[in-house]
């Protein structure tokens, strides 16, 4: 699958509290969470993001809380994926469990600015910065993750296993 859209670039250690502040966690409605996505780091994001766009960030994206509201709000905001130098581990799990694709592509991140048009070939592991005319390779999704994705997420994977046992 090929994803394509504009980049919204942020720095290192973007934490779950700025992705979706705790004051909104008395709800788990995706549409409401999307309205406050990235609010404490960039109040303009939720109003300006277009469907298919990418969040691009430095190291340790999603550090902090285990709140699944973070990938839910990003997905519901319309973003197609997150590209970062590295991800915090609970966020990494949650993103896959929620069906939000995320990619670790350090070199590509360095060569992306907010507003650049980028496209990602998920299977081949290729990221193109169309605006700058540059192409980068990244490691495709690990096999176990592909199994999860193929099963339609973690819950479906568990259901299939239960039937088999």
């Amino acid at each position: 699958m090929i994803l394509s859209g504009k980049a919204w670039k942020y720095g290192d250690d973007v934490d779950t509290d700025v992705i979706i502040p705790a004051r909104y966690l008395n709800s788990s409605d995706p549409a409401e969470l999307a309205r406050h996505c990235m609010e404490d780091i960039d109040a303009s994001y939720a109003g300006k993001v277009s469907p298919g766009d990418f969040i691009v960030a430095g190291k340790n994206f999603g550090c902090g809380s285990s709140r699944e509201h973070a990938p839910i709000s990003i997905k519901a905001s319309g973003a197609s994926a997150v590209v970062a130098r590295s991800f915090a581990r609970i966020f990494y799990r949650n993103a896959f469990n929620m069906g939000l694709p995320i990619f670790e592509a350090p070199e590509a991140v360095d060569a992306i600015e907010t507003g650049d048009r980028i496209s990602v070939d998920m299977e081949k592991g290729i990221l193109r910065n169309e605006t700058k005319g540059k192409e980068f390779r990244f490691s495709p999704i690990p096999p176990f993750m592909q199994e999860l994705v193929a099963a339609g997420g973690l819950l479906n994977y568990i259901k299939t296993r239960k039937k088999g046992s």
Partner: protein
Amino acid sequence: MGMTLTEKILAEHAGKEFVAPGELILAKVDLALGNDVTSPIAIQAFRSTGAKAVFDRERVVLVPDHFAPNKDIKSAEQVKMMREFSKEFGLAHWFEVGRMGIEHVLLPDEGLVVPGDLVIGADSHTCTYGALCAFSTGVGSTDLAAAMVSGEVWLKVPETLRIVLSGKPRKWVEGKDVILHLIGEIGVDGALYRSMEYAGDGLAHLPMAWRFTITNMAIEAGAKNGIFPFDGITKAYSDARPRSKYEVVTADRDARYAEELSVDMSALEPVVAFPHLPENTRPLSKVGNVPVDQVVVGSCTNGRIEDLRRAAEVIRGRKVHDGVRMLIFPATQEIYLQAMREGLMETFVTAGAAFSTPTCGPCLGGHMGILAKGERAIATTNRNFVGRMGHPESEVYLANPAVAAASAVLGRIGGPEELP
């Protein structure tokens, strides 16, 4: 080839003789935990699977602690959903307000987690139970839902970072300072995807309360878990709980570690983390003049009776500064009672502090102590991210309970030794 503490517990729960870093396993969980922020999503996901029962009604624990006692109608609806789920599926451990506490203090204190256990919780500070030589880690709501159905979790076996502790900490230096110092050294992603395993003769100087504080903040270094070896201190704590049967796990002598670090605890002074990351640490003597509007003592990191005693020791016979609000949050009802019996509550209230029922409230900017624009707090909590305790233009500094209490008297960040 030998295994680390984490590898041994994971192998045991995956039904394997041996596991190695990088391996993906399906492991049985001894306990699966959710709170009022994460359970609603897990409950919806659980119901979507059509499951007729939880895998074991003794092993699924729901604790309403974040926005409870309910701060508004939405929070009340979330907790109601948990309450009804607990009743419908006959959960043995449902903790109602008045009988509850902050999850990561409550569970070990109630004896629901014991050495050798594998615990997952839909809360990032679930890593706390590593203090008991258990493997525990934070996951999301979907992972919790899957575990509630199947009793299993998929895990990638982490590499292990070995941390050798030596020396006796000086007065006013505690577990909080050890972990803040470490995070300051390695950074908030310094142990990313790794296990942090503690060792060394310094362990003899670390009481359980300090160990819980240290493993609680493993996630603040990006780690999957933090873990202490089992010793006499672990045994004394564990044997005093209701579930006294457990398995003692030890690391193999030839276990492989990805890296080793040493900390001489006798060389440490109290540590303060500046906004807006726990890695922005400075020794107390290098803090400078930082006035504060609010002081918070509590949370799953430092809301234990030992923490309250320490803060009370500093504040006894003194007054909270005119310009400061001091808030005390005992982590459980048991700690609340104990604070009452020991006269700590009276000490705090007499000094001009507020004493609350257990809740996570202010730690995550939920309720019960929100900061306004431009305000500054020093807290014994675990995170100081942008907007963590309220307004995105407020600031949180992290420190141990003694430093927090001294700062409440001084009206600025400072230590007990500066008090007249």
